[in-house]
């Protein structure tokens, strides 16, 4: 443990030492910083450097929970915070399952989440990365302009302690670049298409600027001349980036808290075939390849590998300690926490579909009438994870007779989550670990409705 994390751990320990009799107490303390550089037309548009810190205190007494947080580690304010959390607990409804996590003996799989080199990188070097990304993307194609080229990094340190025996601390850092592009061809009133590219790493040298720039340019240029497709049912091939977003939604339906509260469309279906036989879906934050790999979950329990769907059969849901207690099972190490301002919820940490072997090109070659979906928008408004209705705006390329064809946009693809899982025809071998809680891979889904003209 680094000295600075030890300092946070000591602070968390001091807070829980103040627990009264019959009181469960949790202190979650964190500190972090970030740098963000945005470049536009070769010059720095903005440079942000920031640090923040804070503490959240949770009190559980007689089955009632209260919580209070502050964006400061001022020790004088902490006393006030503890009394607020205690007072807040007085308003809760008694809940026999309320309680903090207790150590479960599952060993932590250590992860390399910190890189010293990034902490020592100068502002000048970070600015140079963003300027270079802007330059590479700008010169690639005369039809493409760069809307913005961004470099960002962040570091965070956290310590959590509870009166139930949890005591975990750690730190993490990372950096990424993103580029947003605009492509147009013809006069000032010509259509404009957009693209984006990114790269992530734990130090500057891991950032692949040429790939980020090339993705940004290609995504925009390939849509030039896009039209609206005609409405019909066809096969979709989801780009890895889109699959990752789809898997995140599926992960949400396998949330143990939604299950115990009667909100999951898969409740009561353990053991049933809910997906095509080729589907094996695993949540594995112990895989160091995952962008969201972690050693412990949001409650301080060891993160672990959980098989959720195997051979199309629903095996289990993910749980944190509260939902597990209610479901009569144990935590799967899936507590997620957004920071010191909130208490943990339940969620998948690093989803992955068991990949196939074929490339996206090979998958496309097997599709007679379809569309390659390059990006989706409106997942937040058109997908209802409780009813299963799925409808999203999309753009991409038509597939005809196994070949990629004309670009299309301003259409939706629709089905239901239940059907889409059953209608998966193929899974690619092109696994891409994206900066999300799910890995990307090309996915072929049959019988999806396209709505256009």
């Amino acid at each position, binding site marked *: 443990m680094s000295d600075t994390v030890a300092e946070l751990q000591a602070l968390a320990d001091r807070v829980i030492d103040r627990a009264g009799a019959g009181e469960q107490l949790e202190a979650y303390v964190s500190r972090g910083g970030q740098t963000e550089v945005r470049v536009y037309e070769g010059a720095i548009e903005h440079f942000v450097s920031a640090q923040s810190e804070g503490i959240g205190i949770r009190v559980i007494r007689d089955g009632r929970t209260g919580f209070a947080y502050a964006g400061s580690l001022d020790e004088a304010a902490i006393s006030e915070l503890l009394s607020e959390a205690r007072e807040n607990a007085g308003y809760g409804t008694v809940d026999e399952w309320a309680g903090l996590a207790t150590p479960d003996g599952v060993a932590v799989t250590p992860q390399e989440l910190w890189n010293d080199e990034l902490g020592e990188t100068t502002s000048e070097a970070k600015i140079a990365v963003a300027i270079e990304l802007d330059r590479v993307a700008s010169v690639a194609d005369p039809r493409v302009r760069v809307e913005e080229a961004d470099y960002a990094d962040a570091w965070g340190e956290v310590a959590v302690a509870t009166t139930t025996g949890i005591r975990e601390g750690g730190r993490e850092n990372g950096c990424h670049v993103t580029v947003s592009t605009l492509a147009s061809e013809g006069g000032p009133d010509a259509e404009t*298409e957009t693209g984006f590219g990114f790269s992530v790493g734990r130090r500057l040298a891991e950032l692949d600027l040429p790939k980020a720039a090339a993705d940004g340019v290609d995504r925009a240029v390939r849509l030039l001349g896009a039209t609206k497709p005609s409405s019909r049912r066809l096969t979709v091939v989801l780009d890895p980036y889109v699959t990752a977003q789809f898997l995140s939604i599926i992960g949400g339906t396998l949330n143990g808290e939604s299950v115990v509260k009667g909100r999951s469309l898969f409740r009561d279906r353990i053991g049933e075939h809910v997906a095509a036989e080729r589907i094996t879906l695993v949540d594995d934050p112990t895989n160091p390849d995952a962008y969201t790999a972690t050693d412990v979950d949001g409650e301080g329990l060891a993160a672990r590998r959980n098989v959720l769907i195997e051979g199309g059969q629903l095996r289990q849901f993910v749980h944190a300690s509260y939902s597990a207690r209610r479901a009569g099972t144990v935590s799967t190490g899936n507590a997620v926490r957004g920071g010191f301002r909130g208490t943990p919820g339940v969620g998948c940490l690093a989803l992955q579909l068991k990949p196939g072997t074929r490339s996206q090109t090979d998958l496309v070659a097997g599709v007679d009438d379809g569309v390659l979906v390059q990006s989706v928008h409106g997942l937040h408004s058109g997908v209802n994870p409780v009813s299963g209705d799925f409808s999203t705006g999309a753009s991409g390329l038509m597939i005809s007779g196994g070949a990629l064809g004309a670009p299309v946009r301003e259409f939706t693809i629709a089905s239901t989550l239940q059907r889409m899982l059953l209608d998966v025809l193929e899974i690619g071998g092109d696994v891409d670990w994206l900066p999300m809680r799910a890995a990307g891979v090309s996915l072929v889904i049959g019988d999806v409705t396209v709505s256009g003209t």
Partner: protein
Amino acid sequence: MTCDVGSVDPVIDHDVVQRVLSTAVRSGAEFAEVYAEDKRSTSASLDDGRVEQVTTGRDRGAGIRVVAGDTTGFAHTADLSEAGLLAAAEAAAAVATAGGGGERTVVLTRSPRRPVNVVERTPDDVPTSAKVELLTRVDDAARSVGAAITQVSAGYGDSRKRVLVANSEGVLADDEQVRCLMRVSVVADGDTGMQTGYQSMGHTIGFEVFDSVDVTELARTAARQAITKLGARPAPSGSMPVVIQRGTGGILFHEACGHGLEADLVAKGASVYRDKVGEQVASPLVTLVDDGTMSGEWGALSIDDEGHPTQRNVLIQDGVLTDYMWDHLRARKQGRAPNGNGRRQSYMHLPMVRMTNTFVLDGEEDPEEIIRATDHGVYVAQLGGGSVNTASGDFVFGMVEAYLIEDGELTDPLREGNLIGNGPQALRDIDLLGDDFAMGSPGTCGKDGQGVPVGTGQPTLRVKALTIGGTAA
């Protein structure tokens, strides 16, 4: 000029602000700004019949911005001591230096306060038990609608944010922003699976809002919505006329053109509305306004987050584009006055051009007539969220509650889905506009990773063709 010193204690002492700004511009930067906030919030959640948790929080800090040429440096700190602020000012100034140098003293002139929102009962003065009681009333009311209601979750939230903004051009303004919010989500279970209902209300006034808004009616509406949808059929697929109920459709304008009228996106060529001022961009029926002064509404503010008074800005008049929305930097570059649309999520964020309350003014049609005039189409009683690609103009938004229109009458309820369209085309395709204007539910608008509260509104209207993203032929 008389100043209403009011009851707002300064978040930072004015002499300190003046010294921090003078430091920030010492190396030749042409503009510096301090934005400080002190925010207290309370939230309470009820789910599965239990009041799960009451949370209280405090966030306090300052963001300092320094501009030299086209470069902005920004740093924020939770340390509001003079030393903490000076350190942030130095960090912000580190990249934004023009090399001019020399001492420059900033003289601040306090702007008179002009409160847009009148708060009667500050939520801090209301006992927590009264807030929690609202939740149990919501739960009871939703469950009373029918046995099909199997789950209810409700959330209460309030906040009080004291703000101070000062800049090197002498602006010194402060404000106190109070918000109260209630939302309810309901699940109904039937033979066809589960369906959901959702309602929310939010205002920039105090706890007195709950004297005039009946939260139990909010709950019953959400419950009825979920139960109605148990009998819903799949939404159609393809292009057809869409009638949107008053209040809920403001999000259409927010997405179809609001974002595209933000001057920062326009300046980068990332808007289909670039170079279109003075041109007909919408049906002549459409007059679109963004108004931060609409008292009590979710996007209402006395000052924007750059210290400028909010105002009523007409963006589209009778279908002709009249103006974009501006923040301080974009307006300054154009040599024009900012119009109160510079906003940010918190002291940890840079301001940018954002909407406040965006709405379309009344037309002349009877809303019932609009439905009767439609042979075959979709009636959307409640829209969900949306999003837009401002460069291409393509937008989507979700239908939370919708019905089929057949022979001029509402018939079957429809399952959920997205609608998709292209902004300029959809604006031209508005062919009927009602006379029943209403504001809608509170929204959180996301842009570049920042969320800010916004309001939307509109009378009942018809778009002659939008694509419905369902599955039914």
